[in-house]
């Protein structure tokens, strides 16, 4: 009975109803789309960080601090037999990190040299390109670095660094490859070079700053047996900053979520409030026919809830193909939009939204609950409505 009356009233209202449904359905689709992008952002940020930078974690020199470039001159040590052994078994790869100054086209840039074995397989980087015999040291840079220094493949440039006695030394490098990296922290200001060349420049054999572990290797298994110059940083430790960044982005996402939903809710709220004023006589009539206040509140809440229901149906009709298409084909970021400025690494040019069933489901449930509450709140006022006032078309 209630259902039939609600449906008749709902569709009897005509164009206005459909506009509300349309707005609400757009909000639903936009929220799910946004969530897909967000999930894709965060999972790709993690994936990129693991693939290009941290692998399964670090065994690192205990003084190593990536945020203090000058300290890098002191934070390396020779590798012991045990660490060399896990490198030989391809469970880890050594990285030597050292500050330097580059002079591409005569301009000065502070850079960080990252020495790594060209044949390594731990990080997903095309390090094999540094095996080329170019007569000078073959190095690789990321595309951001390439843009900021105007260096491209085949370009040669000078490097100066302070050797162990504190004297400045110089050497010529050639860009063997420009890499397309998702993670900007291994790109901006970074020069990747063969480990042996960097060790030679620093006159050390076998020294390193970090052992990057394979994701299958448990660093804890060697920790008791190596010198206490070395400490273990797990994947979890190393992703801490990223996790808090994503938590921040999470908040931004909810702000968008709330804005979208609010837009839709305002139209429903407005309709409900208007209904309470315009439909007073109808309510009075229903009361005179013997409907209780609870039934009336139920009726009006239910009518509001129908917006959510039909918006979901409509959203599903046109939203599903849109969402599937964007998930499959991705969509390019607008020209000039740099994701690094959002502080989230991992996104280069095309975003593939990642829709998870669980998040779609919880989004829908949450949105429907909110719609019903927004319908219910104004309807609650009916409880205070006197039948005589309703029939006269006024509120007490």
């Amino acid at each position, binding site marked *: 009975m209630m259902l039939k*009356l609600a449906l*008749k009233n709902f569709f009897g209202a005509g164009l206005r109803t459909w506009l509300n449904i349309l707005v609400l359905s757009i909000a639903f689709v936009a929220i799910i789309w946004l969530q897909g992008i967000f999930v894709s952002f965060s999972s790709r940020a993690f994936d990129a960080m693991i693939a290009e930078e941290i692998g399964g974690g670090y065994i690192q020199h205990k003084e190593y601090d990536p945020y203090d470039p000058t300290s890098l001159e002191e934070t390396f040590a020779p590798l012991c037999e045990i660490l060399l052994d896990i490198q030989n078994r391809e469970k880890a790869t050594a990285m030597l990190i050292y500050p330097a100054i580059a002079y591409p086209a005569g301009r000065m840039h502070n850079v960080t040299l990252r020495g790594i074995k060209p044949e390594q397989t731990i990080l997903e980087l095309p390090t094999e390109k540094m095996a080329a015999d170019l007569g000078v040291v073959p190095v690789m840079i990321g595309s951001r670095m390439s843009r900021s220094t105007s260096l491209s493949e085949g370009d040669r440039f000078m490097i100066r660094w302070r050797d162990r006695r504190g004297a400045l030394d110089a050497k010529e490098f050639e860009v063997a490859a420009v890499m397309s990296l998702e993670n900007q922290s291994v790109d901006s200001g970074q020069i990747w070079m063969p480990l042996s060349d960097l060790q030679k420049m620093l006159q050390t054999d076998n020294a390193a700053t970090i052992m990057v572990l394979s994701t299958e290797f448990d660093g804890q298994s060697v920790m008791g047996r190596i010198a206490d110059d070395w400490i273990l940083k797990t994947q979890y430790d190393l992703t801490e900053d990223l996790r808090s960044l994503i938590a921040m982005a999470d908040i931004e996402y909810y702000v968008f979520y709330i804005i979208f939903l609010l837009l839709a809710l305002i139209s429903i709220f407005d309709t409900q409030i208007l209904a309470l004023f315009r439909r007073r006589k109808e309510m009075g009539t229903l009361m005179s026919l013997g409907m209780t206040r609870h039934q009336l509140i139920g009726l009006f809440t239910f009518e509001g809830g129908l917006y959510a229901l039909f918006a979901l149906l409509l959203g599903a009709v046109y939203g599903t193909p849109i969402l599937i298409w964007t998930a499959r084909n991705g969509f390019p970021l607008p020209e000039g939009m740099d994701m690094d400025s959002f502080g989230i690494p991992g996104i280069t040019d095309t975003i593939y939204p990642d829709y998870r069933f669980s998040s779609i489901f919880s989004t829908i449930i949450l949105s429907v609950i909110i719609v019903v509450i927004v319908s219910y709140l104004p309807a609650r006022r009916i409880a205070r409505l*006197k*039948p005589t006032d309703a029939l006269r078309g006024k509120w007490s």
Partner: protein
Amino acid sequence: MQNVIEIRNMTKHYPVGTGKFTALEDINLQFGKGEFAGLVGPSGSGKTTLLNIVGTLDNQSEGEVAVLGNDIRILSSRQAADMRSEHIGFIFQTYNLLPHYTVFENVEFPLILLKYPAKKRSDLVMEVLEMVGLTDKVKSKPAKLSGGQCQRVAIARAMVKKPAILLADEPTANLDVDNSHNILQLMVKMNKEMNTSFIFSTHDEKVIRYLRRKINLLDGKVASDTEQLNNDA
């Protein structure tokens, strides 16, 4: 015979600003089964107020009002709703039909509230639509009907449950002469067939001629209460 409505020393105040306005004062009235009575008086004399109280839509301020033996002051809002649903029919000056429902659905609605089964509902609806002469309009929406037709639907809706009491607040105020007579003859007929007590509020001479009992209200007081011979009925 027991009265369907008993009003004793009843007064109704409305709060106005800081004070109060007395709309009805010291009313004593009884209505028996099958009456065809009217509250007659100028605008503001308290006719609608009295009908609303009798119809359990409002409460009196002082005195006693019993409807079908129930003291209306102690009814919960739920019980009052049930009372209206089962025993009281309303007819309004402005018809008050549900705009998105067809004629059939409008008349059926009170029976749905009473949880009658579908077959019984449809039989009763068709029976009463026959009486008001609207069997050819069952599927029409109110917007497609004339004022007279709308009021006949409203009468059918009020009478379909065969209530003990029918309250009609100026039912002819929006109708022309022909339609008014039409409606009144219909109600006289139903009053006889169903033994429902009809109480009107009106200042329409056409209506007054049909009344068997005429209660004059003046400034919230009963000025006169007279039986009258009914020529038209």
